[in-house]
């Protein structure tokens, strides 16, 4: 998995690319650190270029959500498509995390 961060006034948008699996633990730790350093309250993960996510990837997104919530930031998952959208549905993540089209 790779990512690019765009820091705007109202929100931070992080574009994730590739596959997000248990092997990406180091990248997720780095990403969470970077997100905590930005000013915006709204932290948007743009998933449109993410091709595959597994249960550990979902778990790491939940850790990100929790860490943001601890400092009064809001994590939003945006524009999931294909397999990723399907997994978010199967895992019923909409009950736990804000999801936008």
């Amino acid at each position, binding site marked *: 998995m790779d990512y690019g961060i765009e820091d705007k006034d109202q929100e931070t948008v992080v574009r994730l690319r590739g*596959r997000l*699996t*248990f*092997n990406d*633990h*180091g990248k*997720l*730790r780095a990403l*969470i650190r970077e997100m905590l350093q930005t000013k915006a309250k709204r932290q948007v993960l743009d998933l449109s270029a993410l091709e*595959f996510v*597994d*249960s*550990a990837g*979902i*778990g*790491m997104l*939940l*850790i990100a*959500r*929790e*860490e943001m919530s601890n400092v009064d930031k809001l994590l939003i998952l945006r524009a999931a498509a*294909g*397999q990723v959208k*399907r*997994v978010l549905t*199967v*895992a019923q993540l909409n009950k736990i995390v804000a999801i936008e089209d």
Partner: protein
Amino acid sequence: MAPDRPPVEHSPMDRPPMEQPRVAALCGLGVPAERLERLSAALRLPLWRPGDYPDDSPSDSADPTRAAATVLALLDGLDTAEAAESWARPIAAWIEVGTLSDEALAAAAGRARRADLFAFLTTATANHVHLAARIVRAITDLHPLPDTQRDDMELALHEAVSNALVHGNLQVEGMKGLSVAALERFSQDLAARMADPLFANRRIEVAVWLDADGILVEVADEGTGYARPEHMEFGASGRGLDMIAAIAEELQLLDGGRRIRMRFPL
């Protein structure tokens, strides 16, 4: 899952009988020629090279899930395991040579001959090559599937393979709780075990059988086993098996949790 189901003569969860092994030839990818020739003789499988076709391989066979003869590949080294052509038809079985003796290779080849697709790799290699994705590609080469069904099957196989590698062979516990601390602990444990040959050289075995209306997949590891708890506290980990259960038509844990058997409808 239906653990209380009464025994029946033949259930869709049984391995289909494999009266005529499909594996008709052997190829070596990175294996020294001398050893390859010795194994070819011992296994009574002629040597095959990319570009050849096994003797009786009708590519326009009436039933694409059956009949076509296949090749068993012996892999050595990450480069050959990574190459896309190592995973292309007619190769349908993959055994990583590693530190296996000729006897152990012959035993694995025997299991390969009883399945439609078969892989026997070390933990490190299976993780590196994204084994689940390779197996799903090989399945869809035999039997094309709609995108959604393909994606679901890849997720289920990936979860089964991940469980076998991470929790089975590497004996790394899942992420407990929802904190960066839990993620860091997982990171450190995973990296340490992956760097330890005692764990990273443990094997994963995947076998696939296709029949007219379903696909049966088994994933086995060499860990200490697993018992599914009645109540599960979800932290960042623990969703994999439920995802498999949501996707697969049927699911069984065998050998004390070291082997999972899944069936998917076609």
